[in-house]
């Protein structure tokens, strides 16, 4: 059965022409190959309102994005949007006027957050124009794909798990 509008959605964010900024897209492309058929996988640029539209109707959303927080390149962070607000510093440092963090917080105010929303951030090394990920970011993206596939199999809170078991 083809994936429907509801259910589980994975969104990779980034720009493939800005080196490690593509980490989320790379992870999403691999997940598209490997994820079970009921899971939808999308690629987005990170413009916030488009993001809010794309997750409409989904029960569980996993966002994968690149980060520039000063941590070691390849570090992966996991945030649960329902457990914690996306840190306000996000607002000052997002390079989209209305980006990922703004989309999450606006959706929270308007009551449009998906029932479950997990954000994975992969720390990048370079965001200069160019193609291809840095080796440590490439490795982190690969590991994150495994981790998300693991989540899909084992997390009892995620829908679709019973199908897999």
């Amino acid at each position: 059965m083809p994936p429907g509008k509801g259910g589980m959605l994975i969104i990779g964010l980034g720009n493939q022409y800005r080196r490690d900024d593509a980490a989320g897209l790379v992870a999403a492309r691999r997940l598209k190959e490997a994820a079970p058929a009921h899971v939808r996988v999308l690629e987005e640029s990170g413009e916030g309102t488009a993001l809010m539209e794309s997750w409409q109707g989904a029960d569980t959303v996993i966002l994968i994005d690149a980060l520039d927080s000063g941590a070691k390149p390849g570090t992966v962070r996991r945030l649960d949007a329902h457990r914690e607000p996306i840190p306000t510093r996000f607002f000052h440092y997002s390079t989209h006027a209305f980006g990922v963090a703004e989309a999450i917080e606006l959706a929270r105010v308007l009551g449009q957050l998906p029932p479950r929303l997990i954000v994975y951030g992969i720390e990048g090394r370079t965001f200069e124009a160019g193609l291809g990920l840095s080796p440590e970011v490439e490795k982190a993206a690969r590991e994150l794909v495994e981790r998300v596939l693991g989540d899909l199999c084992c997390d009892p809170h995620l829908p679709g798990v019973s199908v897999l078991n």
Partner: protein
Amino acid sequence: MKSRTIKVDYLARVEGEGALYVKISDNKVTDVKFKIWEPPRLFEAFLRGRNYSEAPDITARICGICPIAYQMSSAHAMETAFGVAVDPQVRALRRLIYCGEWIESHPLHVYLLHAPDFLGYENAIQAAQDHPEIVQRGLQLKKVGNDLMAFLGGREIHPINIRVGGFYKVPTKQELAPFIEKLKWARDAALETVRWTATLPFPDFEQDYEFVALRHPDEYAITEGRLVSNKGLDIAISEYDDHFVEEHTQYANALRSTHKGRGAYHVGPLARYNVNFDKLSPLAQQAARDVGFGPVCRNPFKSIIVRSVETVYACDEALRIIDQYEMPEKPAVEVQPRAATGHGCTEAPRGILYHRYRLDAQGVILDAKIVAPTSQNQKCIESDLWQFVPKHIDLPTEELTWRCEQVIRNYDPCISCATHFLKLHIERD
């Protein structure tokens, strides 16, 4: 006497990364720097050695907000270089998808980025707590633009359907029909937006700008025309480089455009409105007049009203195009490369976007030049700050800083949409 420095390292609610620096000594403004960290011409380097046909898809990646503008300016440049004329219905469809981009981009700025300045909120999230229905209207209006772009462009974020010579695939008239109701709703919502934005409080600030915009004899220019200004400029787009020059600033990693011998010039909605008011549809003109708005507006804060009027126009024009549409026989015309230089210039939501390509006989790109609207407005933004700060110099620094940020946001500056990563600083773990 006291010296003050206004410094904002990261400007909120502008597309990209920007910073502002204003120095005040003895209660006088002594320095203004609007810094933008634009990736210095890296896409131009990307394009060298690529085939002409790749330019629309590559340049679309420069901006997540206005990919159609990049695709259209590049496709037009190639078509001019190779002496290709597209089918009139293909031209109309391109205008239609461009209307979609305006309907997508303008409400985003009006509702989510600009309005909070006038309503006294830090951001749209705060505004949505008190006025959820207004923010929802903005989001729905923007969505109509998105849907039109996604349908005609093949994909929403980086449309793939536009090619040199036309489209890969064109819709039937029937396939466009579902947009009629959506656009009628959007047109009403845009009219409501004009009425609403006209009630916002505006500072008294008028400047004698040189407004530069495309002008076309038969329509409110979006995809083609001559470059015209309110100060007598009237040139073909192929003459752009004879009249406008880019200068490199020490403090900003970006090129700043000036009109040779004249200096700063203003591009974008306000420029288009002032140059082309007579070409707006009767409905859009009436919407402006109904809120006491004539054909001239020199207050950049009021650009929020002008963006709303242009949204009315874009919906009206989209409906007209759909009504008159007949599916073309072929989605694209044949393109035969030849050694030439091509120029393309279209009206991106934020103003004129100029592309120039030099090509060899096989259609390989030898060099590329892309001038985005924001680099053309940069000097104008600084000039506004030089004028604005002295008038408000008695305000406490925090409030003055906020007002300066507003001066910048009037231009909806798109500083570097090419990247969107989050610069995150959290003090924990």
